[in-house]
């Protein structure tokens, strides 16, 4: 174990645990928030950041190779695709006629 590999392991643990943390927060948001749009607010942003962190951690573990390049490609694709999918499903819900949650609904 030389110094460089210890620093690399530190970054891997930092990024991957950060990814797991943001996955946990987005799951709690998906379970606890009151209506469809707020749930998308939790998963759309939380999952994007969590995927980015986890893929960076695994990419550092893999190092500079063709596989590492492919992992970087997945990260770039998810960073583009996840907000697009969230926007599409949220617009479909709006056109379908789902009502956003208001503060008065909680006092029933």
């Amino acid at each position: 174990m030389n110094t460089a590999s210890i620093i690399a392991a530190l970054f891997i643990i930092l990024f991957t645990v950060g990814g797991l943390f943001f996955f946990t927060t987005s799951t709690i948001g998906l379970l606890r928030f009151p209506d469809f749009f707020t749930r998308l607010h939790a998963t759309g942003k939380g999952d994007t950041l969590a995927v980015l962190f986890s893929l960076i951690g695994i990419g550092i573990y893999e190092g500079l190779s063709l596989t590492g390049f492919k992992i970087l490609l997945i990260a770039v694709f998810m960073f583009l695709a996840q907000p697009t999918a969230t926007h599409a499903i949220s617009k479909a819900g709006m056109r379908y006629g789902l009502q956003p949650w208001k503060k008065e609904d909680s006092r029933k």
Partner: protein
Amino acid sequence: MNTFFLVIGIGLCVLVFFVLYRVVFGPGVFNRIAAISAIGTKTLIIILIMGIIYNRIDMFVDISMVYALLNFIGTLAAAKYLEIGGEKL
């Protein structure tokens, strides 16, 4: 390092079971689609971690890439179908 990735993978599997509550009981079809998209995102990372544990990440990374594409296209197709006007679900 393998044990560390195993722990992360088990944590993600537990999270998938929590999200499955929203798929089964979620009111309306839109909540179900959003939850399935979240499950697909977690599965992508689980596949990569399985590749690290089995020492075959060069094979599993291609599966993960295809999984990301199919998850995105499936969500978009469901959204477009419901937007154009499926039956009232």
